[in-house]
């Protein structure tokens, strides 16, 4: 049995976010070195702020400036910082209740080791050198041995939340990083493709041949294992003519994207048709694969020159 394949898979995308009034004030504030909370109906100050009162569900927007100093309410030591985390040397994840706030903010504490961290310790913000309006404008927290007090030169209290050039949106990159395996059945299919053969698996119950095989029949719910070679020739069962260029595809438009039922297969696979003017492609056209050196899949399918297949022969395979 061939080896089961696996490969790293990284998916990432920079998502945009509209902030709305409260988050806009909070993040613009960070850019200006001001930490804002929001006052709830029962008089608490939430930092970071939210748009809606967790108790009454009412819209809230009374902003309050809090201090740059605070108290650690709990913590966990991070022995091995990973990509994208606030510090690249071991640090403590901390919940910090800033002076003037009733809730705690999650961030990083720069400390020499876990022995230097304790619940109840006093800390202060270490600001990032370049600030853009993001939670990372707070580079991290650092130990700070002083009693609660107002931020230097500023009186804590109500704040309009108004700043010059307020931030209205941010970019939030998302990234997933994992190992992908197509499993036993698809690995065997890919292995056979290396010798330009298409091998599916037959369901022991309904006898349909699945290409590519999935190791199970989705309608009967039973495992499949009997290998069956299909094709190489097949029939175009339906198609469309693609006239707009996709960002990630290096194919000249127009081209034909077709469903092709390989001879012996229980369902159609999807591929490009070439070797024929696009306006001459039709349902029932008989085709065969065209391989290019070193490619895992056929580059495209081209007409075989046989007479077209009868509609009744492929109408269940559209």
């Amino acid at each position, binding site marked *: 049995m061939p080896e089961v*394949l696996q*490969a*790293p898979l990284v*998916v990432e*995308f920079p*998502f*945009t*976010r*509209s*902030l*709305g009034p409260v*988050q806009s004030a909070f993040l613009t504030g960070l850019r200006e070195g001001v930490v804002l909370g929001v006052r709830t109906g029962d008089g608490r100050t939430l930092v970071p702020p*939210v*748009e*809606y*009162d*967790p*108790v009454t*569900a009412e*819209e809230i927007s009374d902003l309050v400036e809090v201090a740059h100093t605070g108290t650690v309410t709990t913590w966990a030591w991070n022995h091995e910082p990973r990509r994208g985390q606030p510090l690249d040397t071991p640090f403590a994840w901390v919940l910090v209740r800033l002076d003037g706030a009733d809730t705690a903010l999650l961030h990083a504490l720069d400390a020499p080791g876990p022995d230097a961290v304790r619940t109840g310790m006093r800390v202060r913000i270490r600001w990032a050198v370049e600030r853009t309006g993001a939670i990372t404008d707070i580079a991290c927290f650092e130990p700070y041995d002083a009693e609660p007090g107002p931020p230097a030169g500023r009186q804590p209290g109500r704040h309009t939340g108004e700043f010059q050039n307020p931030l*209205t*949106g941010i970019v*939030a990159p*998302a990234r997933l990083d994992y190992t*992908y395996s*197509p499993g036993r059945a*698809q690995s065997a299919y*890919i292995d056979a493709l290396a010798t330009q053969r298409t091998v599916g698996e037959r369901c022991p119950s309904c006898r*349909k*041949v*699945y290409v590519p095989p999935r190791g199970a*029949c*989705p*309608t009967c719910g039973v495992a499949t294992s009997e290998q069956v070679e299909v094709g190489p020739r097949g029939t175009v069962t*339906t*198609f*469309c*003519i*693609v*006239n*707009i260029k*996709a960002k*990630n*595809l290096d*194919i000249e438009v*127009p081209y034909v*994207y*077709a469903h092709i039922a390989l001879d012996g297969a*229980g*369902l159609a696979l*999807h*591929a*490009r048709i070439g070797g024929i003017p696009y306006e001459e492609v039709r*349902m029932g056209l008989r085709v065969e694969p065209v391989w290019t050196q070193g490619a*895992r*899949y056929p580059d495209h399918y081209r007409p075989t020159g046989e007479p077209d297949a009868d*509609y009744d022969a492929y*109408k*269940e395979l*559209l």
Partner: protein
Amino acid sequence: MSKEPVAVVGIGQTKHVAARRDVSIAGLVREAARRALEDAELSWADVDAVVIGKAPDFFEGVMMPELYLADALGAVGKPMLRVHTAGSVGGSTALVAANLVAARVHGTVLTLAFEKQSESNAMWGLSLPVPFQQPLLAGAGGFFAPHVRAYMRRSGAPDTVGSLVAYKDRRNALKNPCAHLHEHDITLEKVQASPMLWDPIRYSETCPSSDGACAMVLTDRAGAARAPRPPAWMLGGAMRSEPTLFAGKDFVSPQAGKDCAADVYRQAGVADPRRDIDAVEMYVPFSWYEPMWLENLGFAEAGEGWKLTESGVTELDGDLPVNMSGGVLSANPIGASGMIRFAEAALQVRGQAGEHQLERARKVLGHAYGGGSQFFSMWLVGAAPPQS
């Protein structure tokens, strides 16, 4: 013990647009929820549970957004559920909420669905590159266009039918203030002259990408009795699913869609949908799906659906109006689109649809589907409460 009858007493939508940069996702859902509560003349405290739906997390990249939206929807201290069935999710979400009322688990449930497509990337979310696999060779329309061609071959429909649907839906949208597209200068010639993107699908026959949310307040008999405006009564509701790809799958008229409709009709005592149902609001992301679904839902024999479209039966003043709101072709905040269909059906039987209100709307079907014809959800609502 029989089920509790379920009534729709509040409906709220945002004005669907290309981009709502002025609000966060929380602000967007809040707007629809508030409008639904105002319609029902209820407050957050009157709601017993919240059921929310949206398309896959990857679209906006917010994992489990229901957690962060609890505050905005007044769900703190209450049960909150999230439903996830791809493009049909708005419909399934409403049905899960309705079942909570029908089973007498809760008296009044707020249900809501949303999508902020301007902050999302649906194409990316749906076509992540997978190692060893051949990349997809066509865009979103490229997935649907071959099925449309298969329908045309099977039914012998003339190739103008798709443009008739688009022309009708865009004109209906002009009467719906919530619709995203308001193409005041639309003509049939313009639709037919628009570029062919994925032949046989033209640009004007595709749906837009929208930001929007839709919310409904569902309640029991006692709640309906207190409602300030006429309720819509649920007469039947069902969901069905099938694999996206399997040997024998019929993309033109999927079995799960037929079974789902049959279940709804059985619950509602509908013997002949064409005779017993006054109008349909269905999920038509590409114009040709109107005749396809007319057949799938039993309003026409196989291969005959296009004749209803062509002869004007599905027009706003026709005998079986379809997509009075302008449909998905005129607004598509994906996760919300199914619920907008359900809400439009309810608006019609309540007589609250405004300029696009039908004269006769005693029983109206709301329909949603998604995931490459994998999930179906439908409900039939009526102006009168269910018999028995």
